[in-house]
């Protein structure tokens, strides 16, 4: 059984007390999570593996002046925690001084984000999970498509405490459900997915139906040559680009001259592009504090195409005379003003991309990202979907993709994780560099 809130709080206080006994002047930071995780996996229209685990994660950081060490363990009995503290103190005593070490944070008031927790997830048992999978298996079996999928739940508590008085204990839940359908011919593939902090809204059969519909629609793709195309990216694909952009937005790397953002000012992207993180945004419910326990508020990263924030650690904020920024889990790429259908209607010749796969940085200087299209790629001609085409490898500057964006859909979707929503997006001269035979 995962720890209760009371047990979690007591355990963290016990760790602080062990450390105080050994090194009364030490600064100590404790992070303790305790959760129940469960999953069911299926493929070829039948269940493959299924499991349930209780997970604990205790991390203790001890700072002796500018010397520090961190130890982690999943054992939360008193003897194990005491041993962990002793080991961490020993390591800290031996560590050289780290000039970048920042003091632990003190008491900070945060309000529980009720939207980050759903007791229905906590109550779901093996039979309940099996029922969800039974519903999801229907469409594939009925339409002779091979479906594979994954359903997972996470339910637990996240705690932070410090020797300076910090103490947060926050409940959280999350679920993810996805289905990939493949046609018997092996030439069509589609995917449906659901991410949320709550079970509300999860319709397993509908998710599987979406996957099956895309698989059938994408069957028998025709050959389309590589080249630069106008592309319409479904939310799962736009989320991959937005996540990559956000990952690259670091103030220290920019200040040190080793980032695309070094020395740049003014609007870098289309004025339609706005990217932000807000724990209280009901579409992206996050914890109200970061990994160090620092209270989080809304943060704009890109506002109407201009950079309005770069992630900044506490050390770099102090050194550069700015404020710490970031530590949020997810983000929202703001929706635009048109329906998804209108994104396609405005394209004379282009490509509709359902999602990307295996994205990876190629070149940091120009934010060149590579990756593949997957699970439904379609030719657009004269404002309509003309039919399925082969998949592609893309080699594309993320910065250029957002600079050339000329439309975003009104609706946003959690196609990436429970803390992130993105709209469909249209951009131009997107380099589909080579053909991928994969389906």
């Amino acid at each position, binding site marked *: 059984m995962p720890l209760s809130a009371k047990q979690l709080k007591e355990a963290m206080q016990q760790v602080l007390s062990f450390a105080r006994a050994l090194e009364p002047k030490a600064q100590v930071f404790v992070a303790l999570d305790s959760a129940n995780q469960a*999953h069911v996996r299926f493929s070829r229209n039948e269940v493959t593996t*299924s499991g349930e685990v209780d997970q604990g994660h205790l991390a203790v950081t001890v700072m002796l002046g500018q010397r520090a060490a961190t130890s982690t363990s999943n054992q939360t009995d008193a003897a194990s925690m005491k041993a962990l503290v002793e080991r961490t103190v020993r390591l800290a005593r031996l560590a050289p001084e780290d000039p970048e070490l920042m003091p632990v944070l003190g008491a900070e008031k945060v309000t529980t984000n009720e939207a980050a927790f759903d007791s229905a997830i906590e109550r779901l048992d093996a039979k309940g999970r099996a029922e969800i999978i039974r519903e999801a298996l229907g469409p594939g079996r009925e339409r002779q498509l091979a479906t*594979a999928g994954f359903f997972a739940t996470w339910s637990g508590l996240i705690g932070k405490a410090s020797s300076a008085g910090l103490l947060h204990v926050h409940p959280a839940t999350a679920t993810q459900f996805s289905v990939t359908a493949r046609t018997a011919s092996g030439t069509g593939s589609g995917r449906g997915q659901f991410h949320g902090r709550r079970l509300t809204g999860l319709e397993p059969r509908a998710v599987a139906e979406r996957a099956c519909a895309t698989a059938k629609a994408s069957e028998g793709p025709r050959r389309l040559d590589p080249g630069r195309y106008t592309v319409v990216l479904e939310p799962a694909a736009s989320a991959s680009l937005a996540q990559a952009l956000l990952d690259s937005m670091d103030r220290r790397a920019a200040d040190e001259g080793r980032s695309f953002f070094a020395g740049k000012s003014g609007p870098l992207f289309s004025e339609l592009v706005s990217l932000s993180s807000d724990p209280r945004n009901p579409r992206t419910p996050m914890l109200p504090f970061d990994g160090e326990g620092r209270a989080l508020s809304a943060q704009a990263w890109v506002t109407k195409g201009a950079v309005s924030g770069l992630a900044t650690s506490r050390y770099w904020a102090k050194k550069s005379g700015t404020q710490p920024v970031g530590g949020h889990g997810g983000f929202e790429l703001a929706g635009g003003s048109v329906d998804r259908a209108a994104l396609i209607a405005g394209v004379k010749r282009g490509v509709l991309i359902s999602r990307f796969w295996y994205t990876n940085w190629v070149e940091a200087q120009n934010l060149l990202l590579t990756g593949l299209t997957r699970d439904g790629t379609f030719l657009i001609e004269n404002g309509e979907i003309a039919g399925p085409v082969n998949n592609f490898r893309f080699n594309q500057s993320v910065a250029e993709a957002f600079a050339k964006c000329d439309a975003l859909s009104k609706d946003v979707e959690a196609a990436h994780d429970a803390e992130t929503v993105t709209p469909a997006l249209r951009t131009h001269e997107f380099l589909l560099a080579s053909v991928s035979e994969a389906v």
Partner: protein
Amino acid sequence: MTLSRRHFITSTGLTAAAVLAGRSGLSDARGLVVDTVLLAVIDAALSTARAAGAAYADVRVHRRREENVSVRDDHPAGTSDSERYGVGVRVLKGGAWGFASTSRVDPKEVQLATRKALAIAMAQAPLRQRPVELAPTPAYVDVWQTPLEKDPFKIPVADKLELLLGISQTLRKQKVTSFAEASLSSRLEWKLFASTDGALIEQSITRLGPSYAVTLVKDGDFVQRGWDGQAMQAGWEYLATSRFVEDAEKVAEDAREKLAAPSVEPGKRDLILSPENLWLTIHESVGHPTELDRALGDEANFAGTSFATPEKLKVLQYAAPAVTLYADKTTPGGLATCGYDDDGVKTGRWNLVEQGRFVGYQTTREQAGWIGEKASRGCSYAQDHASVPFQRMPNVSLAPSNTTLGVKDLIAATDDGIYVLGDGSWSIDHQRYNFQFTGQMFYEVKKGKVTRALRDVAYQSNTLEFWNACDLIGGPGEWRLGSAFDDGKGEPMQSNPVSHGCAPTRFRKINVLNTRAKKGA
């Protein structure tokens, strides 16, 4: 080491005390399992599963320890020590798997976890169309451990930091702005496996991951050069043979050369790939496609499927006739090397591609029957006690040629090519056709000689075209292992450490891209 399993097989249904009484010889022989609770834990899981009518059950007591020490420029950037310990129980009942785990290594907790696993199996059983069947395997009772001289966990952290700070200092001896990062990761995986088939196996695996990189910044331009060395299953003594310290000066020089190097002209070129680059290409284009679960669709929802489907076995010309690629969980130093897999199957070596022909798959006990094989290849692995074992990649390597060819010979034989060192960016499609890789250093080869360094190089190809374009393979003298500490697969995603060996190898007329081209790569 020969150990009797008779007592264990006959006593697993008895009380913990009886089990211990019958197994004192084994405990003495190992000298490692001294905690009497562990045998009681095993008994609690297996006897509970048996009593409930499970067709099969196994239990893993699993401890992972990881120590990471890192520096940035002239100061430490973090010292951490982490440990995860617990018990995972897997049962087969009603034709379906059920899995549960607990971090409390206690017989009562393990009994509860086993009951939970049984309930999960029964809840899922109606959702199976075909019952799970396991290929038979002998019930081994054995111990296995990494051969090592010095346990890296016993080397003081202060010594490690001093070593890293020295390397960082060497890397930053530059006339332009420079940043250096260096780290050492030590990992221990200890596990005790037992099954209702009668297996009892204890293994202790030690891995060491050293790395560093320097970044140079000049006039709005920047480059990074990382060390070519690789993680290894080994003790601390590995560092002495790896040139970890000695290479720092050369890496610093390379970075300067790279910063000043001209950008590559894209086009078709011959590629000579160093083992420290080619290992990753082998991993993605041979290691993953020959996973049977992937080929049959079990990974379709995440990592994808494979072009190498079973009807192509012994038919598909995967590579040029000179190419033999083999799987081997016994390769000395390989990160995936061990004595037994997490199904309790003894590990071995077999060919995946033989003289160019696709001939084999990676399998587990559950999968062997899917392609009519009678025994598992021993590829089951779970990253920790809380993870379900499933098919994971063994070390997959390119056999060296039966020659004395080295990289100098390959360069001398090349008229217009690029010699690529080290690994960089990587990406491959979800059926393992289209891939793209970069590297660390690139040298132009003209008329048999290295003429100058280049930069901004990526190579892109199709797996079958690439491997069929292989025409020169180095001999055993320059055969080396490259490795991935954390290869991801599965849902929930699990990490698998794995290595790939090869000698310098040449591939003809491969598509080379320029990653900073104005018109795009």
